[in-house]
């Protein structure tokens, strides 16, 4: 018996996965706590903001972790592994659907502009920029948008993205800058905001 029990909060993802493979429920809870939210957001962004589908995908990816934890190689980083699995799930879904779901355009109708809010102009610009940004990402081809999402939204490094997608670092950089140039061009109307 160990003198001091390990704190699951401070354990690495890889160590937690080793514990999960031994049936440690609390280790699984910690992994779920760390990655369920980001993965839900990732699936939401990748699957046309379909919440139900994203929830199902979150369930499916964690079900894989429960049923077959041996699929994870502890020598690899769990983060890149789980995102690569998530990315492959999305690709499979794209193949199934073949048609991507369009997102709503323009401002949210429920957004109330308050005169008393001094930052209302900036907020409107931010919301508009956000909507335009997401719309542009949707229009962008999938291989470029996924790299951009993984880098700027999910917070993966170029090296990690290359591991997730199984491509070289140079390809990742090239796709990122291509996507960035495309976004800069499509969002040039938001220069006042972008130049803040």
């Amino acid at each position: 018996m160990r003198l001091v029990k390990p704190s699951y909060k401070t354990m690495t993802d890889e160590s937690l996965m080793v514990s999960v493979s031994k049936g440690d429920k609390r280790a699984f809870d910690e992994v779920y706590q760390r990655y369920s939210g980001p993965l839900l957001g990732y699936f939401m962004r990748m699957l046309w903001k379909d919440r139900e589908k994203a929830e199902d995908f979150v369930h499916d990816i964690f079900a894989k972790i429960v049923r077959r934890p041996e699929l994870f190689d502890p020598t690899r980083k769990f983060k890149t592994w789980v995102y690569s699995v998530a990315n492959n799930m999305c690709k499979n879904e794209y193949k199934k659907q073949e048609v991507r779901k369009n997102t709503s355009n323009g401002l949210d109708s429920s957004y109330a502009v308050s005169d008393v809010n001094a930052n209302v102009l900036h907020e409107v610009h931010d919301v508009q920029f956000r909507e335009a940004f997401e719309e542009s990402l949707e229009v962008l081809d999938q291989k470029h948008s996924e790299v951009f999402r993984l880098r700027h939204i999910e917070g993966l490094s170029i090296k990690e993205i290359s591991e997730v997608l199984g491509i070289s670092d140079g390809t990742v950089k090239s796709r990122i800058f291509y996507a960035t140039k495309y976004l800069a061009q499509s969002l040039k109307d938001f220069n006042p905001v972008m130049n803040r």
Partner: protein
Amino acid sequence: MKKDIVDIVMEKEFIELTQIERAELNEFCATEEEYNQLKSVFTNVKGMSFEAQKPRTETKDRLDQLFDDTYPKRSPVWYVSVLSVIIPKDKPIYRQPLMQVAAVALLFLLVVPLFRTEMTMSDNLIANNEVVVTENENNRVVEAESIEQEVSVEDVIQEQERSVTAGDVVPGGLASSIDELEPMPTLASGMSSSAPMSDHPDGVFMGGVSEGESVAYSQPASESSELLDLLTATF
């Protein structure tokens, strides 16, 4: 974490780039204007808040059920529930109730002897007081003994006094002569003015009250003129 090219673009101005960085970026943005465009997109996207949504609790419940099915728990034993309470696995050893109780018990066992030592010390103090008392008692005993000794001495003296006989005081020759004297006859019976004159130099007469008994008595000097003259003669 090592900074990649995107981090460099977000952090540095175009004029701050090194030759190596410019060479790496030259493939994607050749001019400063292009560089600033990329920088704007990066910084604005970074400033966007992507609220972290949480999956529904139903999703977690389904996964918990799946986990329990995949890793079935061992058959419950009566003491497992007790052990789970006193030795919870999820807590470090110093936070487990059993260990806490053991620590308190150990602390108690370590502290109690200290109290006992203090009690012993106070007992010693009491013992010292008792010593004083004992000394007093000893004194009393000594006094009592001395009193007893005095009493015994007095008894001895009394006994000695009682046991003093004429033989003890009077020299042996005289004692024997005294013993040989006949008892002086009682005044009531034989004492009279016409009592016979004693041959004894001290005027002691031996007379019998009854037959077989003798009493020694002395004749008053007043009744003997010679003796009186002798006694009253002035020198």
